[in-house]
């Protein structure tokens, strides 16, 4: 019997009552990236990049240029004061090329194919007006695609993640190491840049799988064996770490049913996201909320999905969306548990229970674990079922809805049916007025 919480067919709080299926890709769609308020790009294993209108679902452009699957994509908006704002995207592919596309014209702007290995990550440093590509080495480019500088060969496997840090620094995840690089203008020329390795952090036991910057002072890394480390972004010291929070065995209180089998895949930190207070981690099939201030996990859903959670995102309204290999997208709400009169509480590090009110056992467990600090839980408020295969990623467009991409080659735009309906009414009356019928 699956221990995954289900919500049933009645989902009052789920606003997504309308969907549009966007067809175009011929292989797994892995990336979605927002270009501006109403456009996004999708890319995947077929090497094609599509530009879509998020409101109408209209296919704007179909960008052909890569011959192999796309490995990284990043939006790159020019911030030139003189020109009007142009929207570019950079894509890197397994064919060892990087292409810059113009989103307005749908044309290829430039193409670089001098890489020795596949570029696995791309980061744009808007402030410096440069972008970085990470493969087996780290390269720094300007907008004209001049190679400004590069590091020596770092690893065969390639950089898995890059994140921008303050003071012209970047953190790169290379295997189990975290390397901090600093970019500095070279002394001899104005255009020249140097990239210097500043520090190597080797605290992780296994490959670093995710890297996210929380704010100017902190960034977080997660590894394949479920370690979560919070770093100081200025002096690169470890502020806190959480190494086995997936392990329920340390908790005598937790029911044995929800004990997880410990396969490496189930403990891998697949994705991290954060707001000012918390870091949200997709670990295996579960979702964990780690409070930075309290330095502990405040809520979790150990089996949020039937299989690995691939992507999570925090919404402004205390909601959390997760998507998983099981093909579903779930919407969670972080709720504060009604505080009961204080009882002597075991001061365990882990004070969480995985299940919403619906679950009796979890409630029973919860009763045993009252504590005087506010407690939270993740409540399932809705799920979106549409894809027939793993949902790779999603993009939250606020009012416009939610775009999800999947291994079934489809992109689905989920929309608020009420809003769409009233928008259509508006359009209708506009058209009536236009035709002079009103």
């Amino acid at each position, binding site marked *: 019997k699956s221990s995954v919480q289900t919500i*049933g*067919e*009645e*989902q*009052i709080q*789920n606003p997504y*009552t*309308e*969907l*549009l*299926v966007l*067809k175009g890709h011929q292989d797994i769609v892995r990336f979605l990236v927002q270009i501006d308020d109403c456009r996004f790009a999708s890319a995947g294993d077929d090497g094609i990049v599509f530009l879509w209108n998020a409101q*109408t*679902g*209209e296919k704007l452009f179909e960008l052909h240029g890569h011959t192999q699957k796309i490995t990284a994509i990043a939006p790159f908006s020019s911030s030139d004061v003189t020109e009007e704002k142009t929207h570019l995207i950079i894509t890197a592919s397994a064919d060892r090329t990087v292409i810059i596309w113009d989103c307005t014209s749908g044309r290829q702007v430039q193409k670089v194919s001098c890489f020795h290995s596949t570029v696995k990550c791309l980061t744009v440093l808007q402030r410096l007006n440069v972008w970085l590509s990470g493969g087996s080495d780290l390269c720094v480019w300007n907008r004209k695609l001049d190679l400004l500088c590069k590091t020596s060969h770092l690893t065969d496997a390639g950089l898995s993640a890059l994140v921008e840090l303050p003071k012209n620094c970047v953190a790169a995840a290379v295997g189990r190491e975290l390397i901090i690089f600093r970019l500095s203008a070279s002394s001899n020329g104005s255009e020249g840049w140097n990239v210097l390795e500043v520090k190597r952090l080797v605290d992780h036991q296994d490959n670093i799988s995710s890297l996210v910057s929380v704010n100017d002072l902190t960034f977080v890394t997660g590894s394949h064996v479920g370690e979560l480390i919070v770093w100081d972004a200025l002096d690169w010291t470890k502020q806190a770490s959480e190494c086995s929070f997936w392990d329920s065995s340390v908790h005598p209180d937790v029911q044995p049913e929800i004990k997880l089998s410990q396969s490496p895949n189930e403990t891998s930190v697949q994705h991290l996201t954060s707001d000012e207070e918390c870091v949200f981690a997709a670990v295996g099939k579960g979702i964990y909320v780690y409070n930075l201030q309290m330095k502990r996990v405040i809520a979790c859903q150990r089996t949020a999905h039937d299989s690995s959670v691939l992507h999570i995102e925090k919404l402004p309204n205390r909601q959390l969306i997760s998507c998983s290999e099981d093909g579903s997208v779930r919407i969670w709400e972080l709720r504060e548990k009604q505080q009961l009169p204080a009882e002597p509480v075991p001061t365990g590090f882990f004070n969480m229970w995985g299940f919403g009110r619906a679950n009796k056992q979890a409630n029973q467990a919860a009763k045993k674990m009252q504590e005087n600090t506010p407690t939270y839980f993740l409540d399932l408020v*809705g799920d979106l*079922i*549409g*894809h*027939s295969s793993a949902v790779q990623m999603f993009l939250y467009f606020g009012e416009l809805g939610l775009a999800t991409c999947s291994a079934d080659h*489809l992109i*689905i735009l989920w*929309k608020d*049916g009420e809003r*769409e*309906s*009233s928008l*259509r*009414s*508006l*359009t*209708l*009356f506009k*058209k*009536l007025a236009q*035709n*002079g*019928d*009103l």
Partner: protein
Amino acid sequence: MISAPDVVAFTREEELEDDLYREPPLPEEYSVPLFPFAGQGANPWAKVAGSKFTRDFILISEFSEQVGPQPLLTIPDDAKVSGTFDLNYFSLRIMSVDYQASFVGHPPGSAYPKLNFVEDSKVVLGDSKEGAFAYVHHLTLYDLEARGFVRPFCMAYISADEHKIMQQFQELSSEFSKASECLKTGNRKAFASELEKKLKDLDYTRTVLHNETELQKKANDKGYYTTQAIEKANELASVEKSIIEHQDLLKQIRSYPYRKLKESEFHPYEPECALDRADVGGDQDPAASDPSEPGETHLYTHVPSYTPKLIKAKSAKCFDKKLKTLEELCDVYFFTQTLDQLHHIERTFRGDVCYLLTEQISRALLKQQSVTNFLFEDVSFLEEKPPEKQYRGCQGLGQDAIDEKCSEDSLAPKVVISLGSYKSSVECVPIKMEQEMEDSEEPKMSESVMSEHQENLDYLDADIKGSISSGESIEVLGTEKSGSGLTKSESQASLPVIPSPQVGRSKVGSRRTVSEDSIEVLSTCPSESLIPEDFKASYPSAINEEPYVDDNEGGLRFAPRLNPDVDDGQDDISKQESLVQVDAACCIGKESPNFLEPLAELGQKPCEEDGVVRIPPQPYRPAEQGLRGGFPSHDGISGGLLPYELDSRYLTGSRELSKSSLDECSDSMSYISSAASTCSDRTPSPAHLACQAGERHKKRAGQNALRFIRQYPFAHPAIYSLLSGRTLVVLGEDEAMVKKLVTALSIFVPNCGVYAKPVKHWVTSPLHLVDFQKWKLIGLQRTVSPAGVTALHALSRYSRYLSILDADSKTLRCPLYKGTVVARLADHRTQIKRGSTYYMHVQSILTQLCSKAFLFTFCHHLHLPISEREPEESVVNRRINFLKLQLGLANEDIKIVQYLAELLKLHYIQEPGQGRHPLLRFDYVPSFLYKI
């Protein structure tokens, strides 16, 4: 479907009695079969007493210059059809009412013979002895060898039912005009090539003569001419003259006023034909009329080389030569096209007038509902093919082709009423009206025009016997009243106006005016209703006024009682005009494009009293009483929209029905209760062939649906699923059974666009989300194979988007339904027994739903705040209140209307160019499992 023509006869019993008074007490056809042709399928109501033919047919006759009027062919070409009917005699009749306005010869002031491009004349003619009534379409073809170059022909649609001819006059006229146009186009082509040949002959003759003259000149050096030489010279001169004349004729025929083609009156005949004509037309446009134009030579390049012959000085006596056949006159291609068209006409007007009318009415109404009709109706016929008839038999709507054109190009109708023309018509009136007044006891023409439009609308009550003046054709009137005889030029101006009031006023009594000499022309009509340019020019104001007039018209037509003063009475005259216009349209068929103009309706605020009446053509809530009767669709009509429908003529007309639908009887489907239908074998007359299949499909679907609602107690939630846009999957092992269920349920599926219904009858592969977007009703195979398991798995995965009807275990899994609409739609205790009747019942309820959805969609303040500051909640409240209180919807019915409204919105806002992105709307509602 708005109307239920097949129930009319059963619901009009009192009128049957009324009708019987008029007829001999016991019709003899009750006792003995009247004639052998009645044979099978005849029924006591067949109106065969007077007529000697079994059903309507088309006759083509010629007034031969050699033997006089003679019948050429009939359509259908079947001796049985015309029976004992004397075609020769009737040919004489119909040809004798023709007039030849064509003048070929030397008009004063012109040196050469002139071809007149004569308009066809259209008359209605009755022959009480033969029991035949005919629409007669005269046309003139050119033949170089004929006297005056013209050969008069006529095509006649002959029917025993006079009402049919009168009421379908416009349709007949337009259809026959197409046929005639096709004939004439071919004829012009043939004539031109004939002229070419003749010119070559003449040219050759001239050369020969010239040579001979030269020879003679040389031989003769005496200085004077011999008589022979003079003769030759004369001959040469006459040949030269003849050449010039023929050249002129050729020029004329080529410069045929193709401006006509551009006018709305012209109906492109058939695509192929149009193409062909384009070819011809290209050469014959004014520019090309210059013989030196290259375009012209191009046309005749394909004419096979022709060896000129010497032409004798004296032409053969006209009786020596054989006249060309019609086929030769018109070019084989065009001739066959014309025959096709005539067959098409025959098929179109086959059947009883009652059926034709209801069909037309419902189609016209449907066409009006341009915003909603796509939902449940098969609108393909509205779009693809110009429907043959459009309600104008009774209401004087424009011809379909014109309707289309008008809506597309918004061409102004050519004849519109302006104040001036109205006045002039009044002036003309007394000439004829005196006759009329005696009959109908109406004091004055002018008054009659102003008299309540009620009467005008009810004009159909009248037995239209009154002679009707026409412009271009001479009217041959009933003998007693053949007092007038307006010449063409006089009556032209008054033409649009005069006839109608008379029609409106002539009362039933006038039937007795049938004259003993047995020929009466019931009405004549201006042929192409083409008005010379100079006339048109004199009515510029009319065109400007047109929309206004039409506006009135709409109101008048549909709500004569509810809404009598449509315009605020600013001036009576304009009102009169509008009235007149209505009537004028009845008879003359000057089209009123706005009647079918969708946007004009949209323009009105649907909530306004006025608008409500005009926009949804259904009565507001007739369903309650309609259901009790079991024939709601009929009630739907009689609920005040079409008052004339209560008229008795339906019954009289229906007597002819079984006879006219002889052909259909054989292939009509079996009904579950044959007892219920003594004469119910009257299958609908085939409006067009394409419709026939649809008709049969409807019947079958209706039958299956009836069975479904009787068999399955959970029919209601299933139907609710379909109506609210939730995909219903019919799951079963047996393909036939699943398909049957799908067919049954398909009548409840709203269309998403103008394309085919979103119904998939049989699928064997697992379903995917995309399928639910595309299809709203799916038949799915249940197998035990792994693929079947996947399919079932997919079903359970996507269960929130689906209702699943398991045909094998007879279960249904779908959301709860507690509304009332579906209960009316699918009452398992319904008394309806026939599939087609049930289909219509469903359609009528669905149409009501559509109108509700329409109101809901197009009420501005239900969707947008009235003022800037109004909060969204109050708009939502207003919306809900409207649905609940105003539209009287309960519970889940709201969802149905909301879904339909959503479809309407999508349909309306869709830009024509871009395809719509199919979207799937759904609700998060729990499902329940229903079992038998």
